[in-house]
């Protein structure tokens, strides 16, 4: 199978760029329309099938050539993965809060999680999974957002490429189970009202404004 000239160009660009290339950038460099570039990307996808060593992936806001997952073992003999690769459950929860509500400040995350997250946020910033997103215009604490490295790490195509938060909400019976656990632990009276029904809708931080 021979590639079209545009597909060859796109393949070479993806190979050369250390960062994922957005569709707009590919269009600009190749001076082609988005439709033509998308067709070229599809052509490349067929070329780099499961039998190939590389694959075309849409990740972190652009397209990139990356190695196939099944080759990780042999690749890591050449290049060792960073030792601090593991993300703790507390850090994962902090990342989840930021991913859904970014930009968000540390006090807002702390209020939602019920614990201080200062050291967790600092660690995530040092690891490149979070970055500063500026302060609000009316002043206040520094806000944070997820990074491209975060999107790469968790296989997200772009910022906000997440399942709807509503899909993770507890169902009525699940909320009832939480209530029963609290009753058993002595934190809640037997006849207490269903907490799911009384959960405040806007108890958390401000929702993102689409930025």
């Amino acid at each position, binding site marked *: 199978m021979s590639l079209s000239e545009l597909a060859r160009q796109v393949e070479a660009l993806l190979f050369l760029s250390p960062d994922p290339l957005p569709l707009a950038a590919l269009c600009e460099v190749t001076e082609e329309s988005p439709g033509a570039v998308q067709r070229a990307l599809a052509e490349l996808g067929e070329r780099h099938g499961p039998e190939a060593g590389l694959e075309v992936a849409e990740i972190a806001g652009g397209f990139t050539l990356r*190695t196939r997952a099944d*080759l*990780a073992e042999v690749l890591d003999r050449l290049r060792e993965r960073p030792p601090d690769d593991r993300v703790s459950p507390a850090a994962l929860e902090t990342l989840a809060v930021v991913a859904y509500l970014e930009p968000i400040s540390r006090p807002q995350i702390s209020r*939602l*999680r019920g614990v201080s997250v200062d050291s967790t946020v600092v660690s995530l910033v040092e690891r490149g999974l979070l970055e500063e997103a500026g302060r609000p215009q009316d002043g206040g604490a520094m806000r944070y957002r997820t990074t491209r490295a975060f999107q790469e790490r968790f*296989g997200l195509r772009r910022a906000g490429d997440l399942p709807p938060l509503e899909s*993770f909400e507890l169902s009525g019976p699940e909320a009832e189970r939480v209530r029963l656990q609290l009753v058993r632990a002595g934190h809640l009276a037997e006849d207490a009202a269903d907490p799911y029904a009384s959960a405040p809708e806007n108890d958390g931080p401000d929702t993102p404004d689409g930025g």
Partner: protein
Amino acid sequence: MLAPGMPSPDALQQPIALDLFEGPFDLLLTLVLRDEVELLDLPLVEVVTASLGENARERWDTDTAGELIVLLAAMAELKARRMLGEPGEEEPDPDTLEAREALAARLVAYAPFQRAAAWLAEQGRDNTGPRYRRMPLEGVAPPPPPEEDPRQLQAAMARMLIAPPAPSLAHLTNRRVSMPAALARLQTALSRARAVSFDAFTDGMEPLEEAIALMAALELARRGEVTLAQAEPFGDIAITGSRL
């Protein structure tokens, strides 16, 4: 007071005979605490009588009797609590209930983020395989180009290592104003005239000298050597000698 000649008895080991229980006093206490003897059915008057005995004054010294009384009082309190209901069985106050409800609501409201974290963990596991081209680290200086002349770098460093000239302090003055000298000047002025105008006395002085002169006047006033009078705020101060 222990009766003379009697061996020192152990108050907790003394036998008690009741309709409900017969045995040592400490066993009764243990059974009550284990709920194996129903405290509500236990006649406390009989327990008190049996434990202290008819001739308590003669049988027990003060310390032992005190211990028994404390134990009996605790038992009475326990019985009273059971008759009135345990505190734990009471309805919590509204604030506590509200706080508990808020806790439950918070847990339920936060649950989606916990689940999202679990989803992220799964995503992370699924994406451990692919490798990306290594990107240059931000903030790390690139290696110098090979054609760079080290002597140029040396010259640049040498310029940076030259100490800058010492800054000039010519514009700074080292004025010293002596309080004793200010006192002496004011006393001299007062020796010539009975009253001195502060404005006239400090005419031509620097602000620091003027401040010291004011402190000198206040010091003389404190000593009772002068009296100070000011007709209006920020007006002139008349310094009048107290001694002729």
